[in-house]
Structure formats: C-alpha cells, structure tokens
C-alpha cells in the first residue's frame, strides 16, 4: 500500500504538471481538491484517465471522482479494491 501511495503522488505530480511540488510535500491525508493541493475539475478528469490507463478502472460518472480523489489514502484504498 505504501508503494502505491508513493506511486500515486509521483503520478499526480507528473500528470498534472505540478512543477514545484515534491512527493514529500503531499501528505497521505491532505485534501487534494479545493483549498488543499488546489486541484480542480479538469484535474479530476485527468485522474480518471490515469485510473483507466494505469489501473484498469473505468469510471463512467465524473461525480464518482469526488469521493475517490479526496486524498491519497482514499485513492489508494479505492484502487486496491478495484484494480484489474
């Protein structure tokens, strides 16, 4: 699980082009959207593609993303449960 969380942080930084942020800057329970890391709805769509491409999980309703992408912890939990 720890590896997955690190991997997720790296992917978020890379896919979303967060140039000034390091893996160490993102805590597992940090709020990713809104006031936390400041991600928005377009980032959510990018993460949905990442779930599909890298973990084989297809989301059909973008609104599902809201709960899944709350934090690194929630993302890791969801992926562990649902990955193909």
């Amino acid at each position: 699980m720890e590896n997955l969380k690190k991997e997720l942080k790296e992917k978020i930084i890379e896919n979303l082009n967060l140039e000034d942020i390091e893996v160490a800057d993102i805590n597992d329970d940090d709020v990713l959207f809104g006031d936390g890391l400041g991600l928005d709805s377009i980032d959510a769509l990018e993460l949905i593609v990442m779930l599909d491409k890298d973990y084989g999980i297809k989301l059909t309703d973008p609104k599902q993303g809201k709960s899944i992408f709350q934090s690194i912890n929630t993302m890791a939990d969801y992926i562990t449960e649902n990955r193909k």
Partner: protein
Amino acid sequence: MNNYYINGIGCVSAQDTSNLELNFSDFSELKNNIVDVFKPNYKAFIKPAMIRRMSSGVKSGIVASSIALKEANIDLPEAIITGSGMGCLRDSEKFLEGIINNNEQYLTPTSFIQSTHNTVGGQIALGLSCKSYNVTYVHQATSFESSLIDSMMMIDEGSDHILIGGVDEIGPHTTENHELVGHVKKESDLKNGILNSDSKGSVFSEGAQFFAIERDKKNSTYAKFIDVAVYDKLEIDEVENKMNQFLNDNKMQISDIDMIVLGINGDIDYDEYYNLLMRKTFKNTQQVYYKHLSGEYNTASAFGLWAACKIIKDQSIPKILKINNKEVPTINNVLLYNQYRGLSHSFTLLSSC
C-alpha cells in the same frame, strides 16, 4: 472624432523583448529558420498553480498583456480582444497525436481545452477576473488587425480602456508540413539575411504582442492610432492605389509619411509587394523592417507595431531596423504595410502625439 492612444505595450518574441532593460541594440538578426520565443521568466508573471497547464502561447500572452497593462496603469480593461491565426498549435497537435497514436484512448482534456483558439483571451480574463467583452479573431495574417479595428469601435461606442493582442505559436508538426510545401525558408538561405533575398520561404517563429488602447493620453503614451484597412487579396500593382486611397481617406498623402514599416520576410515570391514600394513610392521615405528579428507568423505585424511604437516614443530609429538612411527630423506619421503570401494585406496608420 475619437482618439485611440497606445498607452502600454508588451512583447514576447524570438528576441528577449520581455526584458524591459534591453533595447534594439541588444537584439540580433535570426540565424535559424525555425525559432521559438525567448522564454521570459514566466513565474514572475503567473501563479504556479495556473502555469502548470498553460501552453507556451498562453504563457507568452499573459506575460505580454501584463506588461502592457502595467505600463498603462490599467487594473481592469473594458475589453480583451485577441488575434491568433493558428491558435494554440502545440496543444492541438498534442491532442490530435494522442487521438491518432493511441486510437482515441487514454486522452486527457487539458490539451483539448488549451487548443481552443480563444484560450489566451479566456486565461487573461481569468487571471484578471475580467468579466468584460472578450473576443478572439482568427483571420490568418489580419487576425491582429481585426482586433485593432474592434478596439477602435469599442472606444467609439464609449469604452475607455481596451487590451488587444496578437499571439501565435510554433507547432512542430505544422511547421514540418509547411516545410514540405516550401513555406519555410531553408537555413542555408539565411546567410545573407532576408533583405533582397533570392530564396523562397520565410523564417517561422512565434510571439505575443499586447497593447493597451485608451481614449485619453497618458504619460505612458507611445502613439495614436489613426486608422487601419485590410484587404484579403491584392495584386502587386493594386497596392499603391489602395495605399493612396487609404491615406487620402485620412487626409494624408505619401509625402506626409515620415516612416514606412514593411513586413518583408525574405520570401522572394512575395517580397516584390514591398520592393515596388521601396523602389518607387517610398524611395524618399525612411524605410524600416522587422521580421529579421521577429520571424514570420500570422500575428507578426503586431511586432511591427510594437517596434513602431518604440520608435515614435524615442523619436529615434534603431540601426538594425533601417533599410535605407534618410534624414527624419521628427517621426510624426508612420505607415505600416504587411501581407503574407500575397494575401491578408493591411495598412496601419499611426502618429506621434
């Protein structure tokens, strides 16, 4: 009758033009045939959270517009009017290549959104929280002039502070295509510069130029717009007549022009449009060119305007821009003429004030 004052200018180009400490003596003629912009210090102008998604064209547009607005001391313009011939090409190509290479799978929205032509105008508005009129013109090499015309109309209709600009980006694949059809000059043909060129094609480049246009004069005023006219197509022998007509409509004639700024780009097939004017019509006028510094792109005429503004304000013509050498005691009336491959002709008239 309204006045249209250019009170702020900003430029990102193949030269280090966003560095306000530099002037024309620091710039040099382009030696390569495809030249990216000289990257400004983007972080000084744009929040990191916003930069991450932006294409080069968007970033350059934001830098150039920030410089222009700051100079004119405008917090919130009443209109943001942008011109772009090809839009944000890099993101268009990225998205399209994703579609083709990955068979329409695993595509992400960012490059699609960034590719829409009005992204630059939209992002500038977002950054300023500007809710006013916002339009993007995409009319090839008169895209910028369309913005200019609209800004004059806005002032006529009662607005006071308008931001206009021209932005174009190099797209690697698109440039390759244009090389295939001979639009891009071969690097080996650039040895002797673009004046009196005997080869086809032009130097492909990119840039963003923005201008704050206002109803009232300010300390920062560079020049006044008098008028603009555009023509889709003209034959070489029609240009002089149309030019004369344009000047007469503005109660001027050729002899009133102190400086002519020409969009010469080194393409032997089309520079004849300028050669005739240089040899005959304006042989006694100071002639100036600029695309040896900026390269060619659909909104490069905005670079010409930027250069003309600086010349009028400084009342001095940098050596690197001169084609000939005439005595010009005062630079009052300046005419700019541009065309691209025989199409998109524009005449722009400025005066000192």
